[in-house]
């Protein structure tokens, strides 16, 4: 694939788009089967949820719902507690994503080498994904049990400083610990995807580089990194989305504590809707969260696209 020169690729692309138009006029018909359930169970509910944000909807038997314009958003603008949690959410989503990326990338590099225990590592790399999410948080809080849990015991035996820390309960370590566990959960998808990209690098290319005298760093810089660029930016975007709107893990690990240090906005919105029954207000939180993410991502995606075209 990559042995083809860029000129040829460009020519082919131009040719392709013309042909595509010629041969695939009726192709939209194929999108219909997927389209119907999508509209019914995704577009409709989502639009309804967004609409709710502009109403005074609350949970209740036979309650009347009326349109109140931007009232919920006005109220939300002054909700300092929500914005505090919003900030935590951004830190959480971005840190989890990049930590998972870093760890997943490292693992993928290892798996791409010829090492002992490769089979074992391969299976293990999937464990966080295969373990039911409801159990993941419980197992980790068990491992991190303060004072006498397995991790505290292990760290104490190894004389690691701060071994007695209650990782999930301490004000300084709670958020980093939750982020580390979030990264643990997010690793497999990243590892598998990056490993695939790495395995797609033609061996000839690496060999040629070795013959040309390129050292390991240069090969990494000019062969490995370009090969995983596209997938990496996609993984970053998706992971930030997934992490920003999830709260299940945090909820079981810390319930938002200590001192609100891990109170992510998805949990805030969930409480607002299900605990306090303010559907309209909760929906406005969802809209703001969605807009923030879309904004962040469009900047990010545009930036990576620019970089791509500059290359």
């Amino acid at each position, binding site marked *: 694939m990559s042995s083809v020169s860029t000129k040829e690729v460009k020519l082919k692309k131009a040719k392709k788009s013309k042909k595509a138009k010629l041969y695939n006029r009726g192709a939209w018909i194929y999108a219909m089967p997927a389209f119907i359930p999508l509209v019914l169970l995704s577009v409709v509910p989502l639009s309804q949820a967004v609409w709710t944000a502009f109403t005074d909807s609350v949970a209740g038997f036979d309650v009347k719902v009326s349109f109140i314009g931007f009232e919920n958003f006005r109220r939300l603008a002054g909700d300092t507690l929500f914005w505090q949690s919003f900030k935590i959410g951004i830190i959480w989503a971005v840190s989890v994503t990049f930590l998972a990326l870093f760890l997943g990338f490292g693992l993928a590099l290892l798996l791409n080498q010829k090492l002992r225990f490769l089979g074992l590592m391969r299976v293990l790399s999937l464990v966080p994904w295969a373990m039911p999410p409801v159990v993941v948080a419980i197992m980790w809080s068990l491992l991190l049990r303060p004072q006498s849990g397995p991790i505290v015991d292990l760290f104490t035996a190894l004389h690691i400083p701060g071994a007695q820390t209650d990782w999930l309960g301490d004000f300084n370590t709670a958020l980093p610990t939750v982020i580390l566990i979030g990264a643990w959960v997010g690793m497999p998808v990243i590892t598998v995807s990056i490993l695939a990209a790495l395995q797609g690098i033609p061996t000839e290319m690496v060999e040629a580089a070795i013959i040309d005298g390129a050292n390991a760093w240069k090969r990494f810089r000019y062969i490995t990194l370009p090969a995983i660029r596209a997938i990496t930016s996609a993984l970053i975007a998706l992971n930030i989305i997934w992490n920003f709107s999830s709260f299940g893990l945090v909820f079981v690990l810390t319930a938002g504590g200590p001192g609100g240090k891990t109170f992510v906005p998805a949990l805030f919105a969930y409480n607002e809707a299900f*605990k306090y029954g303010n559907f309209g207000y909760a929906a406005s939180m969802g809209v703001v969260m969605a807009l923030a993410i879309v904004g962040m991502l469009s900047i990010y995606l545009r930036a990576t696209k620019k970089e791509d075209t500059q290359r």
Partner: protein
Amino acid sequence: MKKSKLFAVVAAIAMTASLAVTIPARAAGIEMTYLTPAYLKGTVASTERIVADWNKANPNATVKIVYGDVNNMQDKLTTAFAGNVAPDIFQHEAASILEFSKRGYLADLSREMAPLKKTIPAGLWSVGSYKNRLYGAPTMTQTYTVFANVDAFKKAGVKIPTGTNTFTWDDYRELAKKFTTDGKYGVAWGLRSPAAMTMIMGMNYNALFFRGITTVPQISVNANELEVPTRIHQMIYTDKTIDPAALTMTGAGPVPGFLAGKYAMIFAASYVASDLDVAAKASGFNWTALPLLKGSASNKQGANPQTLSVSKQSKYPKQAAAFIRFMLQDANLAELALGEGLIPATTGSLKSALATKKDSAGWTQILDDGEALVLAPFTLVPNYQKWKDTVLQPAMQQYLQGKISLSELKKRQVEGYKAIR
């Protein structure tokens, strides 16, 4: 051909799958659904036994058990109510029932449950009510209490406090000092989520937190409201009798350390008694519960019992209420409550439970304590739940972990309530 084979496989899978998804035949008569968060081995067995008994006696109005998990009852019920598919009968906790009754989702049980009214302590009855109508029949409840290691007390030659309304916070403080020796702490107290506990224990000092609950609620945090946190803080930082390393544990977190003899006492919710029983059986661990702590006002605690409710959407409210009465029969309720390590609500079932546990000093003490539970008035304040979760919880965690001062705690409680939208 290859592709046709693949399609055939897909089709075959789809067909077998659809065959597997058959709808079970319905029995004659009506069938009600009962959503329960029961999860312990014993309670599940008891629930199934009780429902089977009911179905045998009432073949025309049978009950089908639906298990829900307690942490997601709220989501499940909120959606079910919104979609008009709520279970006929369900078990939930009083604090959440209140929200549902305000929203008009629950059937009034006052008349149907009237015969049982005199057997249920007034405090519990009022917690299940809203505007003088009963929306949740109280079934079982917990208290917060001090558990003691009997052998440690014997070894130290310290008399174990007994009786009712005898054991004060000052006594507790002195006792904790006595057992804090040789690098050992007298007490472990899991304070990871301290908000609910400090509010409930605040009743000892008549901590009301709000004025004008029935008109325009206004927050008011003064000496009474700050008494319980101050006392806990004193024990941690002045007396150094509470193990600081156990502070961030969950409520039941210190149990393993307690069993290992690390502390002579733990403060916890009464349900940990069932864990202690496991250890008593396996290794002869000798535990008991001390009388409820008593403050300057009383030994009263705010109640948040488990309740049984009938949803307004139910087509069979009469039969559903009859089933609740059946659940509340002495033997049934006693069995259910003991299975969860909780105190049964009715006087008859309490007697029955006491008879079962008469050999256990700890259980006898716990079961005697049900009378002290009252309606905590602040639970009726709109936004109370939200204030508790988003303002009180973090502030209390910070105060008890020594991050903020008492005046800062007060300031946050007051200003936090005003900032709630």
